[in-house]
């Protein structure tokens, strides 16, 4: 029955999103801008970083296109869960949902579903524009391997997002997990440049961030057509993160809901 419930949440959020028509179309329109910016940056750089970009096929635009597209999943996970709690608290609808038999974790998880769907749509638009209009080369892509990396990425990032939502449930604002990952990922996670550019001691930080393995795996799968076997190091790292983060996220959220119920702050913001 969970999928029927999921459909209800998606329907609700789709109607709400499209009821603000101007904002909805603006969001679609401005997707083109960031991608065009990096296209021209790539033109300027040309072959300057070739030695660092070689493992990814050598083209900076293709490299950064995947970076900006798929790092969106991390942003969505970090913001989606906590913002869905906060939005429902502020709208005043959270209490009405929490007195139904649907448990709190399901409500929070399904509330973030629309954000993931919209992010997936944005990634697809980025890739289509990049490939068909701006010449990014993904002719060797191994789509199945990319899907495996994507699923692991979503599981991993969602767990971090749920930990972040747990903080929001208790602190209401000032969630440290969100700030930590948002501020470190662009620098250390390899979104705009390969982590090989960083000095060795800084690369150690990159290796403890899931986004590093996610983007590395995704680039190798889409740009170089790596097989699952060749992607094993990235897949193993993402599985290991998931094994730790999924139970941690669920425990943190269970504790946060209990604490909010004890403190009577479940619907406060």
């Amino acid at each position, binding site marked *: 029955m969970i999928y029927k419930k999921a459909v*209800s949440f998606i329907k609700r959020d789709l109607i709400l999103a499209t009821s603000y028509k101007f904002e909805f179309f603006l969001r679609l329109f401005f997707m083109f801008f960031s991608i065009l910016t990096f296209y021209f940056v790539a033109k300027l750089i040309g072959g300057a970083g070739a030695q660092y970009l070689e493992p990814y096929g050598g083209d900076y635009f293709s490299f950064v296109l995947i970076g900006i597209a798929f790092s969106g999943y991390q942003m969505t996970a970090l913001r989606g869960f906590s913002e869905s709690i906060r939005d429902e608290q502020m709208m005043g609808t959270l209490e009405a949902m929490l007195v139904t038999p649907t448990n709190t974790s399901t409500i929070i998880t399904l509330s973030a579903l629309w954000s993931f769907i919209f992010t997936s749509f944005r990634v697809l638009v980025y890739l289509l524009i990049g490939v068909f209009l701006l010449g990014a080369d993904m002719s060797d892509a191994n789509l199945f391997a990319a899907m495996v990396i994507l699923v692991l990425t979503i599981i991993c990032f969602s767990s971090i997002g749920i930990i972040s939502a747990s903080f929001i449930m208790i602190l209401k604002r000032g969630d440290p997990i969100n700030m930590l990952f948002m501020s470190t990922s662009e620098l250390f996670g390899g979104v705009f440049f390969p982590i090989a550019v960083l000095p060795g001691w800084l690369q150690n930080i990159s290796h403890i961030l899931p986004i590093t393995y996610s983007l590395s795996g995704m680039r190798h799968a889409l740009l170089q057509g790596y097989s699952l076997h060749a992607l094993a190091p990235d897949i193993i790292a993402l599985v290991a993160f998931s094994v730790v983060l999924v139970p941690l996220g669920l425990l943190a959220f269970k504790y946060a809901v209990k604490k909010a119920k004890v403190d009577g702050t479940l619907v406060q913001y």
Partner: protein
Amino acid sequence: MGYAIETYDLTKKFALQKGFTEFLMHPFGKNEITAVKKVNIKIRKGELFGVLGPNGAGKTTLIKLLCTLVLPTEGTAYVNGYNIAEDSGKVRESIGFITADERSFYWRLTGQQNLKFFASLHNFYSFDAQKRVNELLDIVGLKNRADDRFLSYSAGMKQRMAIARGLLNDPEVVFMDEPTKGLDPGAAQNLRGFIKERIVKEQGKTVFLSTHHLGEAEQLCDRIAIIDEGEIRVIGSPEELKSELTKPNSTLDDVFLHYTGKEFKEEVAQKHPYPERRRMMREGRRGVMRGGRIGGIRF
């Protein structure tokens, strides 16, 4: 006899947030306020039970405890035989919650879309959900406005939507937190009729209602609990409570004064110093309220 609701020494204390100086001076000291204090009540099935008290008396906290939104500090309670702390899921399956807060709906969805969404949270989907939603829209007299956005509804219509949502799962126990709050006197009176006639008499549901209107409590409730500063001072039917006083022609005002030592009306008035102006401003913002019918009752 099976009770719909039983509470045993139910207590809720909230920690008060410390100021910066207080935190520095007494970092480990606890400041607490007792919102609900050792409440013991037993409510029969099919009873319309009211909790009467001024603002801040602990009515809403008591309802939130029984609806599993807040965990008790001490004591326990059973709703439909389920423990509120240990079987919270079962409790929520068997209750409906009606709040006066119009913000608890999605204003940009239609009435029907709102109810269908909340029906899915009660595990009603597709055909079952549509059937139940249609029935309820008919009961509360909103069938003709089902496809209008919630934001276009009048205050009375919004309150009828809250009732429809509270009945989605055909609950055995319905909690109502100040259900007539924000309604004009005519709409409030009609809603009271609907609660008593349709929900309690026809459908046989147990209703636990909080109010700070003496007349509402007297008119509606089989029994009333007077609550003040988190404590239940007395429980009884309005007639019993009045007859226990020695004063001839006693009113619920007198009962409240007798058991709490406070003037009830004055206290409410102090909380809302300009009720008429507040009403006019509210109506001015929302426009003129449109009437409707629910279950044959104008409202």
